[in-house]
């Protein structure tokens, strides 16, 4: 017995020692590897079929879009070097980058672009986030490196949508690759700086530098993305030096991580607004005064500080700052007396609120809801909190008449940071069952402006219209405006060049060890 336990103990010890964890020295060998921990479950690898932000982020190593965004959310050329709108605004001509090759050797040209965009508007391909591209009526290959998109109607938002990974350029030849079909490109072949060499499901994705990449080559030969859903495990991995970069560590630890000598924190603003939806087509929230009153009743600043650990930014508009057309509308400052008075004036004292929240879907969602509930109780509102797993929750809140909640927490982000997509959270077009606007907010005046704004391709005019809309929404308060999230990145301080896009994506293409 003693012998046995000794044997076991020494075996365990051997395991422990063999783990000999790496220190924080960044890998500087020629075959250097950067290891990133991500906290999601992968779904499909076909960009066109994609509907998850972080999976898009992963795919960005492999595939590239025609345009992209910088850290401020401004449009940048990528595989398209230049573009031009027709005078009427219903045709977009794009100049494509020359000398670009897909990983399978196929040259990137206008035909490839036509193929890739064509899949998005083809009924045979399932494209959950393909709405933005339905406006493309026709595609003309003008020359091998010029393509013209003819649209149903003028819309500037299409250009932004071309920056969404969903519209990434795919090698037409990859249709014949193993495991692929036209409808389903599970082994995507793109033009990105890395190529996916190994996908261990549920465990990790291994990318290797693509040596024929058209642009500046990345420093790291390999990028390994480890799939670790538990944020504690991510944090432990970073702290021990096994991971170079992690996303969304537990927010309660941000301060502590920042204090670590080897770790740096990036708070990347995102386009995701977190808010509570009032169900506005039923009492008591059919009253604007009641909705405004509740907006005044909650001390969002205090919650951001105490519950959110300053991981989020207070919303000052129905749009998050990185969404195109954003304009500042203001904040409902915490004023419980005013809230009480307004409720009294509206005859809505002691109203019943059934407050719904998901758990763990958004930063501190459930915890924040609890805090909000206690503020609401302080102004005399009776709050009953309900929660459910995500599938049940979404089924509940998107039902037309069986929603058990009359106030519920959500956090949406338009994938391409376009105003049009953001508006589906406010407009009639987004009412369930067609969309995610469970508020049933109905403002004909606003809808009219929105109608015009969608077709306006002059940036200044359009932004004006959206600004008007945002002010209307702010006044009408179909939401309790809370905050916009940040993508929290924590990384090894010895690595520089880690950046982000303001749509919850990190960018490490040009990351390298500090000298």
């Amino acid at each position, binding site marked *: 017995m003693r012998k046995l336990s000794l044997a076991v103990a020494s075996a365990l010890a051997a395991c422990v020692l063999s783990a000999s964890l790496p220190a924080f020295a960044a890998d500087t060998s020629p075959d250097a590897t950067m290891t990133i921990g991500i906290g999601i479950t992968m779904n499909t690898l076909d960009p066109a079929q994609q509907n998850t932000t972080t999976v898009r982020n992963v795919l960005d190593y492999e595939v590239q879009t025609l345009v992209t965004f910088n850290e401020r959310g401004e449009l940048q050329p990528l595989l398209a070097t230049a573009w031009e709108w027709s005078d009427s605004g219903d045709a977009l001509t794009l100049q494509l980058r020359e000398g670009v090759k897909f990983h399978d050797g196929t040259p990137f040209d206008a035909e490839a672009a036509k193929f890739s965009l064509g899949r998005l508007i083809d009924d045979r391909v399932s494209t959950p986030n393909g709405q933005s591209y339905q406006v493309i009526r026709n595609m003309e290959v003008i020359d091998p490196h010029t393509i013209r998109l003819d649209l149903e109607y003028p819309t500037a938002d299409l250009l932004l949508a071309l920056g969404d990974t969903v519209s990434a350029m795919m090698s037409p030849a990859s249709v014949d690759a193993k495991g692929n079909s036209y409808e389903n490109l599970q082994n995507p072949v793109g033009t990105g700086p890395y190529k996916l060499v190994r996908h261990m499901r549920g465990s990790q994705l291994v990318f290797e530098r693509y040596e024929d990449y058209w642009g500046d080559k990345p420093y790291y030969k390999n990028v390994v993305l480890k799939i670790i859903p538990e944020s504690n495990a991510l944090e432990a991995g970073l702290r021990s030096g096994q991971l170079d970069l992690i996303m969304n560590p537990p927010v*309660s630890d941000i301060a*502590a991580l920042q204090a670590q000598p080897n770790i740096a924190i990036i708070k990347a603003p995102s386009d995701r607004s977190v808010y509570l939806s009032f169900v506005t087509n039923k009492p008591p929230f059919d009253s604007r005064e009641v909705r405004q009153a509740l907006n005044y009743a909650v001390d969002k600043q205090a919650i951001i500080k105490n519950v959110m650990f300053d991981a989020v930014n207070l919303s000052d508009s129905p749009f998050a700052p990185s969404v195109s057309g954003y304009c500042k509308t203001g904040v409902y400052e915490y004023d419980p007396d005013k809230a009480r008075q307004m409720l009294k004036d509206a005859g809505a004292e002691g109203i019943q609120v059934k407050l719904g929240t998901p758990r763990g879907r958004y930063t501190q969602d459930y915890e924040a809801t609890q805090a909000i509930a206690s503020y609401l109780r302080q102004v005399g509102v009776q709050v009953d*909190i309900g929660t459910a797993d995500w599938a049940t929750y979404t089924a509940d809140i998107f039902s037309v008449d069986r929603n058990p909640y009359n106030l519920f927490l959500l956090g949406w982000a338009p994938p391409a940071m376009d105003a049009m997509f953001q508006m589906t959270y406010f407009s009639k077009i987004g009412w369930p069952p067609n969309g995610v606007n469970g508020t049933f907010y109905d403002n004909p005046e606003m809808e009219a402006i929105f109608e015009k704004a969608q077709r306006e391709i002059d940036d200044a005019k359009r932004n004006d219209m959206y600004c008007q809309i945002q002010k209307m929404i702010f006044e009408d308060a179909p939401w309790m405006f809370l905050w916009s999230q940040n993508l929290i990145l924590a990384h090894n301080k010895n690595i520089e060049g880690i950046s982000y896009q303001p749509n919850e994506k990190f960018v490490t293409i040009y990351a390298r060890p500090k000298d």
Partner: protein
Amino acid sequence: MTGMTSATQQDPAAGAPAPMADDDAPAAPQDRFLRRFVSNRAATAGAIVLAILIVMALAAPWLSSWDPTLQDLSQAFQKPSAAHWLGTDNLGRDVLARIMYGGRYTLLIGVIAVAIAAAIGVPIGLISGYYGASVDMVIQRGADILLSFNAFLLALILVAVLGVGMQSVTIAAGIGVMPQFIRIARAEALSIRETDYVAAAVNFGSGSGRIILRHVLPNALTPVIVYATLNIGTTILVAAGLGFLGLGVQPPTPEWGSMLGEARSYIFHAPMQMTFPGLAIFLAVLSFNLMGDGLRDALDPELR
């Protein structure tokens, strides 16, 4: 599995143990008594722990001045102190109060779930064992299907159907362990069916239902009670596991499993927060297991 059953029946260990088959051995009864006594000391400890947990749960309003759902964000993540004996959680709620109130849910779920399991499983098992033949075949096939999931998995799938919440979790945990009750009751019925008094009852023309109710059930009760006690722990673990995943009793209800689930986001920031709910679950399950062991030894030393 048919094969498994037949093998178990031939199991040499299934026979009565003979501590000393020597007819000279005067030790046997004492031996058994002794064993009973020793384990009863552990069982007593279990009963005391359980009693404390029950008293804490029932008398929570008098024992603690804290409201288990009252949050005070300025007091979040406090370490244990005179005001908060076990500290506060991420929303500044008193952990001790939450654990005391939480006992109500956790213990209740455990007991009711087992009651459900026994109420469904035992009659099915008795019928299966008593009637045998094709009835038995059909029921056993069904039980096999359920047994091919383990308790937690079964409960998990059920909760997905029933939705989250105390009621669903209780039912799910109960159904989760129910197949085992079918097995136990069936085995008992099989052996009781062969006894003389059942044969006599049949001769007297008693109906099957009457025989099952009058003769089979009372005789199967001892092992079922022992098994039920030992399974309260299991159902508590299943329910707490669901709570841990966020699929159990929903917050702000201070059920221990969901408290632990909430606390796991803070293991770096406040490792203390996950310590106490886990300890509470452990103690509750332990006390039921100790009592179950004690009962088993006292009522039926041959049962394992």
